[in-house]
């Protein structure tokens, strides 16, 4: 996902541009530490507005990083969001890349 410009700035590692935005990083981080949440819980955890979160989830879903599942709790519809296996792997790789970059920085 990293562009040539990104690579020039971060020569040691690939930076995933989909995750590398503060809001999406937050969403990915919270989804990484739970199995799944509904939309409301994710709004509360991230502090994003529903519209903003919806837009970021759309981008993450497009990249194949999150899976949106419709369920029913009694008669009420419930949308659960979770990281896909690909998203989990991407987040792990992103974390390692960032740690590598920070470790390589001169004092």
């Amino acid at each position, binding site marked *: 996902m990293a562009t040539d410009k990104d690579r020039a700035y971060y020569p040691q590692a690939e930076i995933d541009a989909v995750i590398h935005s503060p809001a999406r*990083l937050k969403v990915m981080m919270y989804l*990484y*530490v739970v*199995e799944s*949440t509904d939309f409301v*819980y994710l709004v509360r*955890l991230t502090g994003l507005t529903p519209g903003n979160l*919806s837009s970021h989830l759309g981008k993450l879903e497009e990249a194949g990083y999150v899976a949106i599942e419709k369920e029913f709790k009694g008669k009420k519809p419930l949308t*659960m969001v979770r990281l896909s296996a690909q998203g989990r792997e991407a987040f792990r790789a992103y974390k390692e890349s960032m740690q590598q970059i920070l470790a390589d920085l001169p004092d």
Partner: protein
Amino acid sequence: MPEALDLQQAERKAFTLAFQDGLLDLALGLELVALVLAPLLERTRPLADWWIALLSLPILVALAAGKRLLTTPRLGRVRFLPARKVRMQAVATILGIIVLGGLLVGMAWFWLGQGHLPEWVGEMLSPTILWAAISLFSFSLAAHTLGLPRLYLYGAMYALVHPAQALLRTRPDLGALPLVPSLISAAVMLAIGGLLLTRFLRAYPPLAGEDLYGHG
């Protein structure tokens, strides 16, 4: 960035968010009031030991209803990773064992009353010491697992209720004086619960509809 990637902290936040509604504190405070009132009611009514169950049941029902009607619509739902679920099951098992242990101790006391157990066992099983130990241990375990430090304080407050009950039963001349520390403790829990609930209701107004994410 390091703060943003503190995954342990993030998991803890995801978990403790569900306990910010103050309902647990209110239920524990009311339960403590019930524990204090039960011996008084036992004196005047014919239901004896059933009072504690009669007083506790509506508290449990109110807690469940509050979670369902107040918390879930405002906070939503979350499912945790297997590691967290296993930890919670382990704690539930330990607490179950403690309750079972308490029942066994109660039975031992009954037998002791019948003269079936040696005296030294009775000294070891002093109900005040056991109640304090069980309260402190179970609340500390819950505080550690749930990440709610105020439960340590609640454990100490619950530990004090048994001496108050014992004094009330054995020293009628003291009147309601032995109840005061426990009632103050209950008032503290209720005040904390009330404060948390007010803050929760202000911080998390209901979102427009539970299923807001318009996919599919």
